[in-house]
């Protein structure tokens, strides 16, 4: 019987010819990742279990990104623990303030994810690297501890949903709109325990940044992972970043899927998720005009260069509305520098945005833009749960960078097409 991309990668990792959905396996890991919130818990488990060595210091990455630059004393203590551990085991890919970025933008940029690899991260958005044809999934801190010590982890092989993308995206529509639309259609548990396997000729025109955004939010549909086939865009992205051997896996023609979802990209409009679930989607024209106090452009979902370009295209030569605070957070130092050299940072600052060093910050209500009671934000982040960015009375509307930027200018939730006047891309 045929296998999906995910099945093939897990079979390779488990040293088996074939694995079936539902089968429990133990697979070899290519990378184990953690951040400043989850790594300290993993370290305490690692030490409590009596481990004294790591399986491979070059296959572990620790990125201090959530509360950094440290927001308070407690956060600083957590970072100190992670720093000490990284030093103790000479962890090669340890990223601290100054060279860190938001982990899921940083890991691909540093060449630490490649097609066919098995990557776990103690962060739910680790599913991002499926954009490169890797199997990557979020796990907990105990998994991270076990992974760091043994280089192995148990998995249940997921069944799959095939998402067939056709057609071309229209102006002001991006990867964020694709994934919000999908989550709106199948629900926040629509892909529970399953893999989202992307296919179809619509993929060829999706940039890598769009694919990262799409896979990043696979978890928001409950998926174990999202995965794209490897094509010319992937190869171009990997050039100069990854020089080790890797292998791409494609799905068999007779691979089994639980279900299929077809999305004609040419029919999609800018889409938003209203409070308090990512599946609570509307097209922006349906809900334009909702009052807002803050806009956040950044995060592991939408803090990449293409995202900043799309936001800057809207903000350039305009001003952020008086009643709105707009915070822009490039996801990595490289993205920040590239954006600066392209003039995007100047566009943001001239428009009245606050621009920050890379951090997850406001996405999880950590720092750098926490909301007050009854405030509402439009954010390019990934979750709009109750209390995610502030008190339980605050609200988050999830949107693309173009919609977020248009909303900052309009002073309320806004459609970039109406602000920019038609179909200019």
């Amino acid at each position, binding site marked *: 019987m045929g296998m999906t991309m995910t099945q093939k990668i897990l079979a390779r990792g488990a040293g088996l010819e074939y694995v079936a959905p539902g089968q429990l396996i133990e697979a070899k890991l290519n990378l184990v990742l953690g951040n400043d919130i989850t790594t300290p818990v993993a370290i*305490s488990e690692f030490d409590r279990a009596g481990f004294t060595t790591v399986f491979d210091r070059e296959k572990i990455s620790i990125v201090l990104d959530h509360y950094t630059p440290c927001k308070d004393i407690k956060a600083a203590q957590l970072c100190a623990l992670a720093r000490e551990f990284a030093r103790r085991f000479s962890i090669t890919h340890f990223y601290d303030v100054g060279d860190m970025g938001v982990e899921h933008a940083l890991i691909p940029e540093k060449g630490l994810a490649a097609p066919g690899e098995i990557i776990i991260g103690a962060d739910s958005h680790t599913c991002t690297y499926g954009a490169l044809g890797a199997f990557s999934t979020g796990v907990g801190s105990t998994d991270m501890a076990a992974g760091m010590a043994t280089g192995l982890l148990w998995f249940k092989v997921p069944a799959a949903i095939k998402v067939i993308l056709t057609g071309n995206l229209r102006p002001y529509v991006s990867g964020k709109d694709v994934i919000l639309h999908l989550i709106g259609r199948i629900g926040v548990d629509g892909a529970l325990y399953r893999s989202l396997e992307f296919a179809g000729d619509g993929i060829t025109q999706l940039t890598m940044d769009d694919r990262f955004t799409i896979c990043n939010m696979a978890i928001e549909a409950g998926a174990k992972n999202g995965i794209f086939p490897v094509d010319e865009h992937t190869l171009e992205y990997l050039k100069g970043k990854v020089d080790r051997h890797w292998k791409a896996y494609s799905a068999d023609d007779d691979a089994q899927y639980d279900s299929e979802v077809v999305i004609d990209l040419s029919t999609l409009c800018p889409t938003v998720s209203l409070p308090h679930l990512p599946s609570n989607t509307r097209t922006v024209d349906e809900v334009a005009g909702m009052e807002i106090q803050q806009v956040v452009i950044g995060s592991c979902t939408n803090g990449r260069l293409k995202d900043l370009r799309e936001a800057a295209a809207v903000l350039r030569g305009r001003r952020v509305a008086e009643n709105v605070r707009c915070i822009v957070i490039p996801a990595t130092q490289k993205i920040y520098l590239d954006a600066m050299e392209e003039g995007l940072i100047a566009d943001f600052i001239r428009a009245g945005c606050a621009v920050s060093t890379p951090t997850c910050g406001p996405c999880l209500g950590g720092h750098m833009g926490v909301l007050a009671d009854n405030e509402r934000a439009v954010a390019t982040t990934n979750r709009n749960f109750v209390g995610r960015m502030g008190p339980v009375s605050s609200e988050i509307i999830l949107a693309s960078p173009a919609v977020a930027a248009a909303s900052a200018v309009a002073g309320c939730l806004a459609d970039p097409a109406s602000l920019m006047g038609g179909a200019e891309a």
Partner: protein
Amino acid sequence: MKVYKYGDNVDTDVIIPARYLNAPDERSLASHWMEDLDPSFAAAVKPGDMIVAGSNFGCGSSREHAPIAIKACGVACVIAASFARIFYRNAINIGFPILECPEAVAGISAGDEVSVDFDSGAIVNVTTGKTFRAVPFPPFVGGIVKNGGLLNSLKSRGLAK
């Protein structure tokens, strides 16, 4: 053994808000468990109480702080119609019992007395007399829970000291 009952899609941000993750000791986490959904829970919960919830329990962030906090509260188990997958494996990995059983969720109300046999997956609503059966863990996963978590299980296999 009181049952606390919640709806669908209880996410890890309401289970343990990120503002408390900078102090990950289990007592501190337990004191804030469910604070944004049910502010009275942490003070009221007694050892042996159970959580019964709808579908996709524990969705969102991978924070293991969520099952760590509930275990530290003394809660005996969570019965849900379904679990988000990272919460599911985190609970197993720390040796905290969870049961997936939509029928039991439909047949148990807040405040009911419930008893559970983890080996067979039998869930008895003592208040109503009804019995439900959750699918027990596969042996490999059940072994992790019985050993008190993944790292203890690795020790018993000689993969950890």
